[in-house]
């Protein structure tokens, strides 16, 4: 079966026809994301933020996919997709605030839904956003982010089925990172590939080397073009690997074979691969590399400072937005909490 589902790779081939400035940008954003994740893990260890789900190892999938979209497209993320949201325009300070248990908002003026915490329940939302774009006569699309574990959920089935029936302009971007917390991919499904599940829904399926940022960029770009032409949805299986823990509360040494981890870390790291490619094609020097990393650290420092500079939250913040017009009871419930706090 896997022979029918070839894995698209670009870095192993010759020169890419992606413009050099885009290639550079993809590389810079991958470094920004990794630097951010490393910093966030430190912040968590210091008790300055709460539990955090790093995307270490998945930078090519996150960055390559999101760069293939337009800002007018919808991003429908899961909890590990701050990289894609960052590319789509989300300030990193919002990600810090999110991890501080503060604003769960990841949207702002962005065309993105807030990160979905339950698994795969957001996939039908992407279908609905795509159907809305279709009915409103735009050529925008929606892209849902989820993992290999998400394909076991009923909502994965329902969303792909609906999308197929309505030929909705939606991309289902599945990052197969090998693990759903401690459960390996082989315990989620007996299917040989995840991409082949597309066949059952009558939609397109693709497999891509998810640690090859140019390949991800290309495959998502092709799926986006199909969607905009009215040719319907695509399921993309992006083969990658979670180098970090599921979250800062997880210890992967309990379940993950050390040799498997070492193999992915040493020979398939998405940033090293792209860096080597750019250097080989004369698009990057060692000095550039140093400057890119320094710029990432400076930017992240500023974003962390911005997040930490905000005043503490007030009780009213949890009442304020539940309804446009809060029901009468809210005032009483809020006042009682505020009175207790002020007596505190």
């Amino acid at each position: 079966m896997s022979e029918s589902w070839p894995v698209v790779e670009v870095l192993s081939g010759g020169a890419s026809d992606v413009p050099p400035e885009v290639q550079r940008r993809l590389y810079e954003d991958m470094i920004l994301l990794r630097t951010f994740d490393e910093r966030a893990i430190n912040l968590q260890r210091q008790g300055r933020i709460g539990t955090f789900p790093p995307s270490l190892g998945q930078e090519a999938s996150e960055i390559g996919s999101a760069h293939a979209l337009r800002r007018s497209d919808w991003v429908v993320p899961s909890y590990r997709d701050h990289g894609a949201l960052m590319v789509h325009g989300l300030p990193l300070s919002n990600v810090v605030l999110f991890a501080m248990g503060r604003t769960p908002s990841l949207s702002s003026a962005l065309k993105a839904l807030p990160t979905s915490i339950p698994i795969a329940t957001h996939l039908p939302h992407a279908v609905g956003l795509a159907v809305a774009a279709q009915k409103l006569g735009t050529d925008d699309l929606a892209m849902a982010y989820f993992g290999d574990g998400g394909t076991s959920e009923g909502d994965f089935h329902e969303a792909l089925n609906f999308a197929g029936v309505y030929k909705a302009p939606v991309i289902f971007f599945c990052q197969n990172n090998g693990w759903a917390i401690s459960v390996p991919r082989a315990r989620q499904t007996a299917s040989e590939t995840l991409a082949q599940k597309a066949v059952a829904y009558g939609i397109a399926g693709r497999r891509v080397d998810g640690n090859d940022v140019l390949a991800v960029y290309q495959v998502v770009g092709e799926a986006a073009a199909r969607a905009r032409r009215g040719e319907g949805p695509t399921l993309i299986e992006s083969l990658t690997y979670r180098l970090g823990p599921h979250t800062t509360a997880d210890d992967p040494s309990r379940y993950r074979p050390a040799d498997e981890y070492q193999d992915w870390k040493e020979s398939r790291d998405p940033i090293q691969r792209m860096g080597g490619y750019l250097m080989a094609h004369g698009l990057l020097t060692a000095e550039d590399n140093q400057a890119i990393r320094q710029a990432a650290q400076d930017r992240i420092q500023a974003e962390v400072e911005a997040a930490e500079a905000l005043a503490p939250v007030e009780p009213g913040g949890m009442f304020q937005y539940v309804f446009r017009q809060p029901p009468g009871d809210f005032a009483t419930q809020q006042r009682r909490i505020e009175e207790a706090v002020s007596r505190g």
Partner: protein
Amino acid sequence: MAERNMIGAINGTLDQLLAEDARVMVFGEDVGKNGGVFRATEHLQERHGDDRVFDTPLAESGILGMAIGMAVGGLKPIAEIQFMGFLYPGLDQLMSHAGRMAARTQGQVNVPLVVRVPFGGGIRAPEQHADSIEAVLVHTPGLKVVVPSTPYDAKGLLTAALDDPDPVVVMEPIRLYRLGRQEVPEERYTVPIGSARVARPGKHLTVITWGNMVAVALDAARALAEQGEADIEVLDLRSLYPLDREAIGESVNKTGRAVVLHEAPMTGGLGGEVVAAIQETAFWSLRAPVERVTGPDVPYPPYAWEDFYLPNRERLVEAVRRTLKD
């Protein structure tokens, strides 16, 4: 002004809402060519096209999840769930997403979604076609829940639900769909969400109820009046969230006695919340303990037992008499 039954009023309202705003979409299982299993959407596909009135695959989470996306994406979806007993897979979408999207995004994304759900018993339906889970919905923060018991309110509440910027579940009492007709204005109007209605004014005791049970309460009140026993006020809540606590307080402060009536199971039912509202708003006016007349704590039974399960006039009259005696 035409006389309509409730299903006719709902059909006419959907027709009107589709005609006035191209963003309105009506969809669900069998709502297209078939016009819905209760005919609430009859002829709407012919009149408004299959782009706006359409069948969905048979999957309730998919329907409501897609509806959330459509609402956020700039449409005004009116989704139908065929029976409340089939809503359970869709509850995930209401609880995990629809009810908390506005809070999670600090008001930057709201979900102007309408969900229509036929509910309740009394028509000898097959098993699992008669559930009432309003307590679950009301206990889900971020949702509004309304229940008409008249054709007039069916139109006004459905129109208000569409105008509301937040998700609203409209529970439609199946047994009242074709029970009785009423004049329903042709022109657009709304019944405000959050306001109860005095279905029958009275002096001696308030029966607080909603949906199918409003008919039972009115029937009991008529019987007690005819026998010269008591003058009963019937308060039809119409909105279960937000709950009209003021109307509850006003009525019970006047009558001094109350019975709460619903067909859902007793324990954890919304009746408990109504009793709490009574003691918060009218405790010092109470002249007798408040009684509840409800379905028992059993799964809604196969219809051979339906008449034993459902609260009826006799059970309500007994409770009223006990409450009046104290």
